[in-house]
């Protein structure tokens, strides 16, 4: 894997990892809020 490919993979992991973690947090918080 080249540095360019690795950086792109890391960038995509940041985008989808952050969004996924936040969506999961909202979903879990919603279950405990009611």
């Amino acid at each position, binding site marked *: 894997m080249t540095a*360019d490919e*690795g*950086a*792109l993979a890391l*960038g995509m992991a940041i*985008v989808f990892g952050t969004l996924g973690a936040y*969506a999961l947090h*909202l979903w879990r*918080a919603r279950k405990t*809020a009611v």
Partner: protein
Amino acid sequence: MNLQRLAMPLSVAAVLGLALNVVLAFWVAPTAANFAAPLTQRIFYFHVPAAIAAYAAFTVAAAAGGLYLRSREARWDRVAASGAEVGAVLTTIALFTGVVWSRVEFFSAGGQQGFTFALLGDPKFVTTAALWLVFLGYLALRRNLEPGEARARLSAVYGILGFLAVPLSYLSSRFSPHPDLLAPGSGLAPGMGLLLGICTALWLLLFAALFVQRLLLEERTAAALEAQVPAMAAQGGIA
């Protein structure tokens, strides 16, 4: 407006929009010229829209804070808190994708050392990191205060003052080595501006979906708290 009915269609549209964003960034967008790391350059279609959506979120937070101070209606406090939290999440994405992109571009272009100094010398990075920290502070503040008018008032003032970092972050690229890909001769191929516009619209949709979900959660928590107070008072828990 019924938030509950709006939440699911918005969320589905946002997920589909994100999938479309991936297709546009990797299959439709042309390869940009003048970049030493042309693959990572495609982060552009996530990095810039995430930053613009974050600016929109902080604008909502500041405007709702102002409306709260004027009306003292608790719902504006909930709107402000939801906007600030989603804005902090979007800024996290914009900030760290930017660091990854600039790092690989720095080394691919022949840089040997001094990336950290280059990054810290970029006003765009510094002002955006400051914006991120300001709103992390906002969230920490709310978390450590009891729900009520004092917290709402303090949050509103903090959110309005914190919003001052938004124009600083936005305008700082004019005074920094940060690439301005929309400037003429920047290497932006024809059509990339249009694609960026579409991706930005998709990220604004994503912001709207996350914001509505967060606001619903805030409304439920407030309703649950309000229901608890009379029950506790009846049991003699509250004097």
